């Protein structure tokens, strides 16, 4: 792996670290359909990395490869300097990769607090038996985790709905709870699948602020997929552009914006 140690300085002066995850020549096929063909890029410690592209470009498939929901047909995923073998999705989650979903996947029947607590399941150490018997350590552990969760609740400004069943919440708040649950896992990489989809302007601004704050406060590495070009350009440090399963651009927002292939893909090009 090249330049493992040295990072770069962003436009707003943040220091970005070495490579945290590297995707090498990823190809993903479903039967005869090629969703992703031969894409390579890296994700660095502490950066906000965006994946953009028109509908059907393979962005969500890419995210699912990173999160372990899909195992690539060809190619390798390197995480923290090690090659990742074939894993089940829950094992990838245990490695420290948390995500949110495009169509919100929360536990509707549970309270906001309980939902966020599930995010900490992988961090809880006490075993089945002591949990069942509710021995001292299990109860003390619960309190510690509860404290961390309360911090995240404060951070995302959702204190008033703490006890509300998630099924009752409006869309924008659900998205925020989902972010809280992912954050509760203290992830190494946070994957956001269209975090602003279906939001109004005000909700979008809130979400933007939270994403930047999360990155700033916890130093979390964030990978996000987004349709809204304005949002992506404002938020991200580096952008991968996909079209028809191929990578057509990769670099800082300003560079990508002026890339002719990207302009063609987004605005269309006259076929003559």
């Amino acid at each position, binding site marked *: 792996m090249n330049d493992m140690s040295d990072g770069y300085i962003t436009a707003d002066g943040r220091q970005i670290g070495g490579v945290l995850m590297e995707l090498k020549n990823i190809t993903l096929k479903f039967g005869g359909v090629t969703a992703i063909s031969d894409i390579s890029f890296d994700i660095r410690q502490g950066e906000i990395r965006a994946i953009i592209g028109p509908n059907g470009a393979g962005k969500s498939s890419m995210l699912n490869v990173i*999160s372990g*929901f899909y195992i690539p047909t060809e190619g390798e995923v390197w995480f923290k300097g090690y090659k990742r073998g074939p894993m*089940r*999705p*829950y*094992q990838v*989650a*245990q490695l420290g990769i*948390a*995500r949110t*979903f495009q169509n919100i*996947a*929360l*536990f*509707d*029947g*549970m309270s906001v607090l*309980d939902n966020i*607590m*599930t*995010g900490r*399941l*992988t961090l*809880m150490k*006490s075993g*089945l038996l002591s*949990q*069942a018997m*509710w021995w001292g350590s*299990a109860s003390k552990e*619960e309190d510690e985790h509860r404290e961390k969760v309360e911090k995240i609740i404060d951070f995302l400004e959702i204190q008033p709905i703490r006890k509300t*069943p998630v*099924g*009752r919440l409006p869309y924008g708040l659900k998205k925020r709870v989902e972010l809280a*649950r992912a954050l509760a*896992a203290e992830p190494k990489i946070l994957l956001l699948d269209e975090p602003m989809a279906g939001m109004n302007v005000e909700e979008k601004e809130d979400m933007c602020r939270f994403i930047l704050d999360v990155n700033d406060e916890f130093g979390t590495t964030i990978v996000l997929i987004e349709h809204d070009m304005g949002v992506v350009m404002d938020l991200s440090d580096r952008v991968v552009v996909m079209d028809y399963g191929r990578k057509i651009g990769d670099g800082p927002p300003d560079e990508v914006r002026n890339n002719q292939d990207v302009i063609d893909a987004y605005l269309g090009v006259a076929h003559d």
Partner: protein
Amino acid sequence: MPDQLLFAMEVTLNGLMAGVMYALVALGFVLIYKASGIFNYAQGVLALFAALTLVGIQQGQVPFAHLINAMTGMHVSHFGWTVPSVLAIILTAGVMVGLAVIIEKLVLKHLVNQAPIILFMATIGLAYFLEGFGDVMWGADIKKLDVGLPQGISETVESVTDSIFGYGFFIDNLDIVATVVAVLLVTALTLFSQYSKQGRALRAVADDHQAALSVGISLRFIWILVWSIAGFVALVAGIMWGSKSGVQFSLSLIALKALPVLMLGGFTSIPGAIVGGLIIGVGEKLFEFAIGPMIGGATENWFAYVLALIFLVFRPQGLFGEKIIERV
């Protein structure tokens, strides 16, 4: 106190005890429903299978004896030893955990993200399979189950009530034990599901498979856990019912009595299963006592179902069921 009132009190008490027995069966249903959204048709058969296995191990029966005899021409039936009750119960619990692992591997694993009706049908298949399998394994004859639980009428209760009211209540010793066991079981299960890490994971899996995977929950582990607990509850129900009325095929039919209990209590609530069981138990005994003689008796056969039907009209989610939330 007038005799009629005392008699009514005794009937109520007996009803409460019977209700506990119903609740024990209903509990198994609730557990699996809560954790996987499956209505487990096989719960009754699971209780039968547990009881059969317990008797088999206790009496040192050779499993598949008939099959072995038929195939080899030998005449084996018993190993010739008996296993102490406590050890036999622990071994049977082990068998139920093993069964849970097998069910997950052969059935559930292949049905991730399928519609609940598919899973429901799978449990119907499972019920018929286990019914036959239990017969082949341990034989189809009616067996007596005795794990040392007290039998007969409680003399303490009789003498105490006699000295207070001048009228001795007849309460079955076994029913008293069942009540104590049920209370312990329900307390433990409620605490486990509400306040433990695994309990939370369990509720998460019931709600959304994909989201559960994304927070690092292994569906496999949770399913094995749930079916093991359900198997354990089935074992407890099997012991109680088996001690009461012998281990035989009809044991699997007690599951039918659990249905109205569930409709009353709600499919998703452990306390609901208990309260539902008590209401049905007391209701059917009192109804038989007060109204039965006027309409020719035998009301216990249908009272529970009619009560459940009335409940379905006015409160379809049951007394304690989760509110059906739908944003419009």
